[in-house]
């Protein structure tokens, strides 16, 4: 074991980390993989690709992608406004960006349902326009926009704050128009952080449960996200069905996590090059 440090305590700290990680995370997740393996390939495939499961994947990933895209656009605008402009109420606006982080998901789901229900403040206006948000995929997307928002803002914001105004001034002095400056100078520097924020929001949205369960109505094949389908299988004591679908989600989540790590490394290297 290579430990280039004069400090004591490596054995104790490492030992406790490995034991606790194994007990709480690795062994329980391995149980899921092991239970799936005991199903056999044919049964696993049948359970993981049933019509209801496929519909839930389509809805989950589709809604998560749309929500993350909405957040990538509006989250970047919010980050821009918070970093670049000074106006009355800016600190308050900055503070409420974190509300979706801090608010328990069940409460978020309840509140969004109340706002968007036909009797609610926004739902009433939407109903007049003939749009139904509660118990539809639209409601799911709105819930996922809510929980994903801080991920984009808090990823883009520090990069924007580090962006040196000299860069933009230089572009303007050299005769670039404002649009050219934004597209050619600012966008390339911001892009890695926007993509990272998008992926973080997407990954969070794919696994989201609490904020969606109230607003979606949970109709199989129509508004049932994958987490809800797993829950439904568990409630029917269909552990084989739940296990197969959960393993699919676990593998996808793990791949997303590895992708995010790679993205963040890339974004850091890009930022490092910009500063040098």
């Amino acid at each position, binding site marked *: 074991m290579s430990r280039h440090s004069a400090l004591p305590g490596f054995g104790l700290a490492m030992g406790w980390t490995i034991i606790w990680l194994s007990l709480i995370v690795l062994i329980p997740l391995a149980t899921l993989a092991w239970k799936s393996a005991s199903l056999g390939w044919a049964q696993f495939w049948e359970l993981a690709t049933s019509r209801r499961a496929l519909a839930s994947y389509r809805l989950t990933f589709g809604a998560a992608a749309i929500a993350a895209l909405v957040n990538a656009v509006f989250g970047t605008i919010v980050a821009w406004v918070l970093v670049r402009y000074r106006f009355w109420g800016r600190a308050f606006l900055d503070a409420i960006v974190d509300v979706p982080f801090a608010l328990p998901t069940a409460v978020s789901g*309840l509140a969004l349902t109340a706002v968007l229900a036909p009797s609610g403040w926004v739902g009433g206006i939407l109903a007049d326009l003939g749009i139904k948000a509660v118990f539809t995929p639209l409601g799911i997307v709105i819930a996922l926009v809510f929980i994903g928002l801080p991920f984009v803002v808090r990823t883009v914001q520090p990069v924007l704050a580090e962006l040196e105004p000299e860069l933009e001034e230089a572009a303007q002095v050299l005769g670039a128009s404002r649009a050219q400056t934004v597209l050619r100078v600012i966008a390339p520097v911001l892009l890695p952080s926007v993509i990272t924020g998008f992926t973080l929001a997407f990954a969070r949205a794919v696994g989201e449960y609490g904020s969606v369960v109230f607003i979606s109505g949970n109709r199989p094949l129509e508004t049932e996200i994958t987490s809800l389908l797993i829950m439904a299988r568990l409630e029917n004591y269909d552990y084989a069905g739940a296990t197969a679908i959960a393993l699919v989600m676990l593998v996808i989540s793990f791949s997303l996590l590895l992708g995010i790590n790679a993205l963040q490394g890339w974004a850091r290297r890009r930022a490092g090059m910009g500063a040098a």
Partner: protein
Amino acid sequence: MRAARHALIATAILFLGLVVGLPVVVILHQAFSKGWSAFAAAIHEPAARHAIRLTLTVAAIAVPLNLVFGVAASWAIARFRFPGRAALLTLIDLPFAVSPVIAGMVFVLLFGRQGVVGPTVFGEQIIFALPGIVLATVFVTFPFVARELIPLMEAQGADEEEAAVVLGASGWQVFFWVTLPKIKWGLLYGVILCNARAMGEFGAVSVVSGHIRGRTNTLPLHVEILYNEYSYQAAFAVASLLLLLAFFTLAGKHLVEWRARRAEETFIP
């Protein structure tokens, strides 16, 4: 230029107001829709009081466990170089990536009626009881403290710790007298985030709790039950307690950031 500026500010305010502001206001509006006495009654009702007690108990067990883990993991990862370090970091992050329903489900696979381990450990029932709720909560809040501390400790470096060792301090002395004062604000922030998630967790706890009213219902589960029983005002009254938790969490975050900034400004090397 000016027009663009105003348009962007207006867009940001409108977007945040609609997506974040309205849901917060609606919770308070609904909670007090039948007046103060109905609000107080919803919170004083025995099942609600039990849910509050259970939520506090679960957080009081899960947060210290993750605090100890977070400090140990940060010490190992931020102060030493070893093979597999990046992989270990990724594994610590894993609970963030996993759907909370799956987080609860794995403990049912282990401790359920047909589970791998079986329903009881040392005669203690795990699923549909307090131990299961604590396990699921520890799982979902697992990375919070470590995630705050590792980058902080890496940025600070180990020069002071190494000096203390050279001067003859023992390992625990180094930790309590040198490291802890350096990391205390980051540690506190990690604990605040960990606590907020522990008290607010819904999906994972929902799978393992069994929803036994007055016994295994935490605050978020109690909110769901009230809502499903069409007791909307009561559901929002209890939800407003969790909104209060969110406010305290955000206030704690700002306090910690302010203290950390001040500590940086007054620091004389």
